[in-house]
């Protein structure tokens, strides 16, 4: 598909470095966890997981996202998608645990919306560096929410893993995780020790080139799974013994260890 010319209809300032852009393009068929390729004309095109049917939530980190922050309501971006494999939607009688760090709350929030609408029991561990960077806490408020901040400005002074260590995960049927890879890997290790990683889904991030599963730039070791097509959501069982938590590759294919 060609990029869909999409007008920005609303911008929400979530925190000093995070904004949500709403578009006049709706991805009604999108499954939570799926992404769109966002083309910032004249700059670059980057993958962004949908934070809603017509929205992306962006942290300012590079050229493309900085350029996005210069755009206003009425400006346009090109959107292609939804692409990739999203989260498994829980069944009505299942109990779910969300673990989200920083802007990692964005891919999980649409799942929380669905879960809330179905009346499914939820528990969220929501972490960030400080209280003004806590994202979408109201969207997770359908159940218990434990907040952690690195600086102790709100909730528990520490990391989501500190909270997870004290949480009885055997109670939950499904666990969903998104955040910085180091955080996700620590979560993975805790859950693997409890054999709970196989009921857990992780939303991964890698450098995407084509974004449609052809070029192989986001292929993971050792099985060559493509994050853009076979993922970006992976079951913990698929990540056992993989590069996850250890290294990634940049746009030239050179490895960088975490």
């Amino acid at each position, binding site marked *: 598909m*060609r990029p869909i010319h999409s007008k920005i209809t609303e911008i929400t300032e979530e925190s000093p470095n995070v904004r949500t852009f709403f578009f006049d393009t709706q991805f009604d068929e999108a499954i939570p966890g799926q992404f769109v390729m966002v083309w910032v004309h004249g700059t*670059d095109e980057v993958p962004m997981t949908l934070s809603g049917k017509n929205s992306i939530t962006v942290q300012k980190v590079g050229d493309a996202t900085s350029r996005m922050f210069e755009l206003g309501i009425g400006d346009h971006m090109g959107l292609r998608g939804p692409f990739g494999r999203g989260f498994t939607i829980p069944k009505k009688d299942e109990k779910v645990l969300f673990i989200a760090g920083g802007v990692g709350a964005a891919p999980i929030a649409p799942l929380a919306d669905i879960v809330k609408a179905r009346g499914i029991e939820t528990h969220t561990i929501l972490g960030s560096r400080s209280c003004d960077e806590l994202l979408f806490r109201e969207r997770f408020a359908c159940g218990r929410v434990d907040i952690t901040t690195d600086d102790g400005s709100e909730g528990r002074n520490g990391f989501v893993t500190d909270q997870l260590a004290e949480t009885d995960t055997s109670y939950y049927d499904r666990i969903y995780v998104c955040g910085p890879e180091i955080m996700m890997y620590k979560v993975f290790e805790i859950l693997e020790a409890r054999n709970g990683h196989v009921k857990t889904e992780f939303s991964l991030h890698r450098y995407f*080139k*084509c974004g449609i599963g*052809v*070029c192989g*730039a986001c*292929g993971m070791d050792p099985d*060559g799974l493509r994050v853009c097509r076979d993922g970006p959501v992976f079951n913990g069982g698929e990540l056992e013994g993989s590069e996850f938590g250890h290294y990634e590759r940049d746009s030239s294919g050179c490895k960088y260890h975490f």
Partner: protein
Amino acid sequence: MKIAGIELKNPTILASGIMGTTGAALARMSRNGAGAVVTKSIGPVPNKGHNNPSMVELECGYINAMGLPNPSYPGFCEEIKIAKSKMDAPLIASIFGGDAGEFTEVAKGLLSSKPDCFELNVSCPHAEGYGASVGTDPELVHEITASVVDAVDVPVWVKLTPNVTDITPIGRAAESAGASAVVAINTVRGMAIDIHSGYPILGNRFGGLSGPAVKPVAVKCVYDLYEALDIPVIGVGGITCPEDAIEMILAGARAVEIGSAVHDDVQIFEKISKGIDIYLQKYGYSKTEDITGLSHEMI
């Protein structure tokens, strides 16, 4: 089947630039039935490639301008070793450079990882100073091919660009310089524009067209090269099903490479090689060679 100096498991080969950045991805394509795999094109220095969008699906195929991203030969040796440790299929190392010296440097630099063959990329349509910038000049192609053939002890294939008036002089240059095969075609130079914003869609503004739209171009190039050369021709361009591969073989291809079709189906290799076998059986042939170039006799 032994073709152009290497033993293929079947006539379907993973084309360069597709799932070829890591050893793990190459091995996965072998598990999915590829008779051999070609790596991403590797050059003398690490290169990030062009900005995105770098590949977009159009109505008739795909347009891409990756810009030869690669970690360079020292970084890629490990990936080749990983691929080779995980699969039996031959591995063909695609390489590029700006001149004969760079091509030879890269080829020699990869030798320790023991690729089974080299494919010289003198045909990428969108990298200034590389690829088709050198591959449209028969003298340069001859010089580069001869230099690499002299430096390595494995077969050397040369991948040709269709973006020339006549592809056969370039093919002859490769053959006379000692190439074991020519591979035709690389992508067809092209462009797509977003009519709403006015921006060319690719980050590099223009790029190369692949997929179903280019198959007739590829069939004609393979047909012409088969007439002009004695060395085998490997056909590539828009093959998405067994019928496409058979058409390419009838035009003169000894084997085929498959790229963009991986988008719709990662198991494409197995499907196409099985389909070729069924065709051979149906028409009473025993091997692919029996039908290679058969269309040339139909006059």
